[in-house]
């Protein structure tokens, strides 16, 4: 049987460039001299089928900085395995030279210095260039979008996802699945799916609540390169739990492993040559599912924003994770014969925006989408002297700034901010524009509530969210990071079971212990409850930044993590 795997080849995208450099000595000129578009796109065609994967773009039309996580703890079987390996260990695992282009694209060390050398990543006009180049080599390629596409920017918020729908239609996507798309509400999703999208919106696990019946197309069969390829969509399983279910009360989601098996079996019975799952499960959930559901050849994984340079093999299934924010495009060439995947070749292509030439048509479309909002987007709110980023299991510096804003603007002891994994990065010295603020706060339920919570309730909240990340069974993980806190210090032992992870809690300013029965003033945003009242989070953050003018943050030491 194992002869199916005649062939495994992965290529480090920029392997010709092995930079050796001390901290802070990279200049843009040397980086650009070393990297070329041809080198980024270089790929020896293989087999007869090509998949192109993008995911979790979060509406980033323009190039951005995105710092990959420093802390990404794996528990249970995931401990010490990708994507729970970061920094120098990650570089060592994949043979990436410190200071190299790959190190910059895929890991966090020396981020600021390398960002100044290598520049911004992504931009849908650059992605379009890469997609067109792959299609020129392989006209039968299938372009698949893993979702979290219509949300995450000011323009997507103001147009209810329209800018992204237009761009993805122009890019020629062949199918997508979904998560944050649903936060525009059922009516808007249906309007887009039924009247605008030029490709199917797949979700085998989206069911009608009332009748518990499939509500969207589960899969699409493509005939390409003489082969029949079944692509199954798997939407984010915890939609009504992690996001406000009142916005899409008609639908139920869930992992629905038995449903996935049934759909795979249906496709196999139909005689397809290849089964691909376009998933928004998150990496660890996909890894578990791929080991339990039989008959999947390729899982294109999204949701947890992991950029993994090599496919992960689960039995005879390959798992591909393509990062986020338009930073990467995966190309997967497959040799499919006699109803079997005989081999594959893969490349995670980093989108260096200064190296890849923008596609002129797409650049014009993006400019046109942004034009009506240009003045609002570009208005300068302040300046930062600190590196502002979010991604990681606990507070990023953006979260510290947001929590400071909430505490001062809403006059509370404690601020709570959601552990979402989206949110772009700014470098020290950068201006903070309104668009930048929206890139870390944009959502359709951004009201900043103000309330009182007892110490006991606060502990319950922290325990509950902690179990959504650190439960050793991936099927019980929701794929976000830990809730961010301001004004609150706490200890967490990630190795403990549900309900026992959170240790001592105290008010961070005074060190005074949090008492279970005592009430504290708390404000936060992204409540999943209907009817939440308060100012929008981006207005709260903007108001705060305007008052302080220049952002200077001290390192946050309020969370003590053990059990790693």
């Amino acid at each position, binding site marked *: 049987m194992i002869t199916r795997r005649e062939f495994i080849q992965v290529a480090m995208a920029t392997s010709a460039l092995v930079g050796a450099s001390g901290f802070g000595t990279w200049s843009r000129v040397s980086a650009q001299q070393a990297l070329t578009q041809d080198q980024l796109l270089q790929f020896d065609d293989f087999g007869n089928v090509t998949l192109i994967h993008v995911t979790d773009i979060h509406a980033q039309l323009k190039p951005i900085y995105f710092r990959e996580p420093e802390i990404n703890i794996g528990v249970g079987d995931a401990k010490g395995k990708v994507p729970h390996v970061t920094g120098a260990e990650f570089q060592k695992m994949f043979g990436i030279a410190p200071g190299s282009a790959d190190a910059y694209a895929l890991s966090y060390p020396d981020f600021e210095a390398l960002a100044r050398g290598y520049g911004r990543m992504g931009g849908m006009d650059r992605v379009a260039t890469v997609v067109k180049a792959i299609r020129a080599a392989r006209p039968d390629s299938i372009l698949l979008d893993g979702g979290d596409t219509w949300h995450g920017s000011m323009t997507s918020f103001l147009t209810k996802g329209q800018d992204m729908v237009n761009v993805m239609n122009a890019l020629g996507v062949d199918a997508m699945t979904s998560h944050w798309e649903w936060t525009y509400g059922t009516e808007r999703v249906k309007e887009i799916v039924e009247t605008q999208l030029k490709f199917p919106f797949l979700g085998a696990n989206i069911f009608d609540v009332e009748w518990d019946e499939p509500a969207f197309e589960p899969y699409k069969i493509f005939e390409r390169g003489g082969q029949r390829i079944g692509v199954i969509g798997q939407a984010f399983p915890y939609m009504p739990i992690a996001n406000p279910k009142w916005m899409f009360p008609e639908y139920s989601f869930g992992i629905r492993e038995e449903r996935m098996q049934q759909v795979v079996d249906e496709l196999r019975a139909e005689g397809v040559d290849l089964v691909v799952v376009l998933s928004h499960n998150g990496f660890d959930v996909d890894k578990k599912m791929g080991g339990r559901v039989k008959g999947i050849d390729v899982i294109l994984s999204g949701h947890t924003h992991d950029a993994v340079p090599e496919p992960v093999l689960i039995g005879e299934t390959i798992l591909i994770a393509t990062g986020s924010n338009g930073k990467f495009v995966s190309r997967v060439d497959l040799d499919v014969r006699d109803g079997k995947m005989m081999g594959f070749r893969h490349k995670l292509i980093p989108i260096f925006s200064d190296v890849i030439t923008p596609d002129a048509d797409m650049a014009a479309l993006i400019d046109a989408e942004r034009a009506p909002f240009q003045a609002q987007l570009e208005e300068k709110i302040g300046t930062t002297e600190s590196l502002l980023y979010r991604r990681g299991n606990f507070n990023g510096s953006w979260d510290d700034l947001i929590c400071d804003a909430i505490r001062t603007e809403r006059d509370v002891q404690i601020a709570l901010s959601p552990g*979402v994994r989206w949110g772009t990065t700014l470098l020290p010295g950068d201006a903070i524009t309104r668009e930048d603020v929206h890139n870390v706060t944009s959502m359709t339920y951004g009201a900043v509530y103000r309330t009182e919570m007892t110490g006991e309730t606060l502990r319950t909240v922290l325990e509950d*969210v902690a179990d959504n990340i650190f439960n050793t069974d991936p099927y019980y993980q929701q794929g976000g990071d830990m809730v961010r806190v301001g004004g609150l210090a706490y200890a967490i032992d990630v190795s403990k079971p549900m309900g026992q992870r959170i240790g001592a809690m105290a008010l961070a300013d005074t060190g005074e212990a949090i008492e279970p029965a005592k009430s504290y003033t708390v404000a936060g945003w992204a409540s999943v409850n209907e009817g939440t009242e308060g100012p929008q989070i981006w207005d709260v953050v903007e108001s705060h930044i305007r008052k302080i003018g220049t952002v200077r943050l001290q390192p946050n030491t309020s969370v003590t993590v053990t059990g790693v």
Partner: protein
Amino acid sequence: MILSRREALWIGFGGLAAAALPGKAVMASTVDELTAAFTGGAAAGEGGITLTAPEIAENGNTVPIEVSAPGAVSVMLLAAGNPEPAVATFNFGPAAADQRAATRIRLAQTQDVIALAKMGDGSIVKAQTTVKVTIGGCGG
């Protein structure tokens, strides 16, 4: 304690008798007591019974649960963490097309849901799964 069994759907037809629930006057029995009463003390085996439930409940007030046990004459569902663990017992007569039942149950908190099936030969099989009931939010 009145069980809030919001909805019950019976899949299959013909010989499905009824769902027997304890009356109001009955004090809440423990999982062990209910199990012993159902099995008559016989040890439960594995396999031959499939319990389908969400890993995390979308709404703890109405959690869809399905149990299938080909060849069973009776299936008992228990929610181990509810004040009253007994959920339902489904009895299948000889004319039942298949031995499968689906219902929606209320779960007060994160807990194990247990299904026990009594087979035609009197043997017992068991399946168990954890359903998490969470306050939600913070999905990345």
